[in-house]
């Protein structure tokens, strides 16, 4: 066994890059452990827990790179080390200006006509960097999380004073002027403007609108907390006014988890004054209260897309068909063994996981999960028998030191074959998310595992029904239609939305449990 620790002083790389490098090294056969990370106190603790003893470890700071690789022999170690060097030196530039700017000021000298600053630094530095950008007159798209409420309010107030937009903190998805920002999809231009506090939510709505043949003017992410009373919907209201004044926007869609009571009143009053039709998906709010403002209320993401399209008389060709769903569910059930009665949901997106739970709970009773207030399932419980279980692989348990599953499918991939250990598993429910910044082939990354899982169940006389939805468009680099075809070619049932996938999975489980009563 060859173990080596190397410390490189003043050699900073961003966390996504390092998590990708570490993850790639761990996947090399013969590599037992690999962690390439900056010298933060958390990372130093992890190295210590891994048994690393190095006197210099205490001396490193956040700008120092710590490389730790353990391999079965020196040949494997040398190969892994060489791969690491290649990955670290491989710049993700593609940028038209790749000059080595160290500060925003230097970047502004290079690009004096810049109009938007994307910021993804660690949370404790986010306010400082975002303030600098706003003071320079740039709109801000702030991906960083772990930003305090106080800092968020300060940034959004500053943006408001300057007439600028502060999307975020914790904002991963927007589409401005047809350009996908961060982990969003590329969508067609059209007359619908979307503002939302849930990234995958606004991405799903925009993608379904695109798939129905229409498009969006802007998709504006606000960050998840914007409609809390402490923030007061500052970004939502600014974006709302801009879309109302935008000549190309005919319909405004707003999406959020349940707003604070005071903020809800403010939003509804603003909607009541709006000259354009507004479709609202404010989760957990009474639809009658929403409709009292003149808005159209929608219960889920797909219904939001359908109702927005309805405002501009564009039909939705992918609508839910109850007869077809029943037919598919009955066909799936015929091949199952007597023990198969439960759903296993393996999700990348917390929003889709949450939506699936919302759809399935009234149909199937309690769903056991690792998210939300009722969470009681840990990462080790994926294969728990006799229960319906839905897991969000984007949760902290699964992402410590690893990229989010939309970037790195490995953790979720490993769970696919694992679900076959439990003979109760009848349906595997999955989401797939596309876009320029996410994994280049999220379906391809898991197909072999799906094939093996199906084969294992088939060999013991059952049938594993795999139900999936793909959130994205044909303009995304992965192409939605190709990703869906790859799934269909491998006997995966593909439906247009996460809601339809959840309904179909519930239907199969209801039939299975009915059969066994």
């Amino acid at each position: 066994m060859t173990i080596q620790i190397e410390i490189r002083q003043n050699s900073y790389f961003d966390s996504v890059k390092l998590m990708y490098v570490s993850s790639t090294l761990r996947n090399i056969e013969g590599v037992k452990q690999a962690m390439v990370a900056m010298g933060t106190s958390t990372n130093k603790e992890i190295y210590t827990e891994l048994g690393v003893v190095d006197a210099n470890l205490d001396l490193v700071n956040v700008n120092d790179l710590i490389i730790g690789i353990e391999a079965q022999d020196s040949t494997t170690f040398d190969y892994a080390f060489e791969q690491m060097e290649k990955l670290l030196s491989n710049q993700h530039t593609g940028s038209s200006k790749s000059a080595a700017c160290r500060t925003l000021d230097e970047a502004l000298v290079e690009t004096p006509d810049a109009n938007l600053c994307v910021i993804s630094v660690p949370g404790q530095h986010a306010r400082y960097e975002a303030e600098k950008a706003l003071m320079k007159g740039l709109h801000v798209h702030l991906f960083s999380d772990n930003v305090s409420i106080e800092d968020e309010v300060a940034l959004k107030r500053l943006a408001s004073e300057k007439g600028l937009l502060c999307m975020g903190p914790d904002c991963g998805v927007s589409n401005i002027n047809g350009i996908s920002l961060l982990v969003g999809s590329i969508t067609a231009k059209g007359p619908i403007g979307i503002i939302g506090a849930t990234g995958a939510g606004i991405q799903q709505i925009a993608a379904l609108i695109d798939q129905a043949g229409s498009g969006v003017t802007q998709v504006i992410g606000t960050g998840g907390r914007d409609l809390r009373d402490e923030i007061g919907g500052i970004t939502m209201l600014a974006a709302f006014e801009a879309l109302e004044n935008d000549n190309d926007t005919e319909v405004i869609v707003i999406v959020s988890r349940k707003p604070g009571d005071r903020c809800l009143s403010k939003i509804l009053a603003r909607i009541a004054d709006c000259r354009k039709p507004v479709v609202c998906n404010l989760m957990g709010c009474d639809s009658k209260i929403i409709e009292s403002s003149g808005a159209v209320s929608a219960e889920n993401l797909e219904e939001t897309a359908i109702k927005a399209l309805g405002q501009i008389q564009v039909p939705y060709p992918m609508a839910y068909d109850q007869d077809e769903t029943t037919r598919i569910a009955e066909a799936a059930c015929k091949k199952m063994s007597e023990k198969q009665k439960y759903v296993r949901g393996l999700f990348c997106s917390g929003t889709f996981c949450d939506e699936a739970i919302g759809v399935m709970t009234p149909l199937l009773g309690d769903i056991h999960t690792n998210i939300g207030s009722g969470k009681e399932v840990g990462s080790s419980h994926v294969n728990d028998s006799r229960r319906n279980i839905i897991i969000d692989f984007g949760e902290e348990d699964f992402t410590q030191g690893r990229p989010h599953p939309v970037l790195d499918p490995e953790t979720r991939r490993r769970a696919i074959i694992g679900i076959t250990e439990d003979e109760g598993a009848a349906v595997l429910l999955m989401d797939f998310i596309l876009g320029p910044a996410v994994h280049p082939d999220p379906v391809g990354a898991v197909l072999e595992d799906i094939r093996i899982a199906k084969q294992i169940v088939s060999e013991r006389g059952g049938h594993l029904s795999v139900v999936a939805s793909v959130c994205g468009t044909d303009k995304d680099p992965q192409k939605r239609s190709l990703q869906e075809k790859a799934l269909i070619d491998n006997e995966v049932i593909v439906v247009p939305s996460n809601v339809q996938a959840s309904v179909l999975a519930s239907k199969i489980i209801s039939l299975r449990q009915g059969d066994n009563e």
Partner: protein
Amino acid sequence: MKQKLEELFDSELVIINVGIELFGSAIASQNVQVTQVQWKPPAGGDQEMIDILKDLGGI
């Protein structure tokens, strides 16, 4: 608010990306001009020093 946001909606995006390179690269792949800032924590991440430097206007 109206004016600067309307300006943004009517303009080509020109982006400065501070932080994760992957995001800058994904935006640049859509034929958008992106300038990458090779950001690293100021003052070696020493919060006390950062606060002092901020007060002095040194960062």
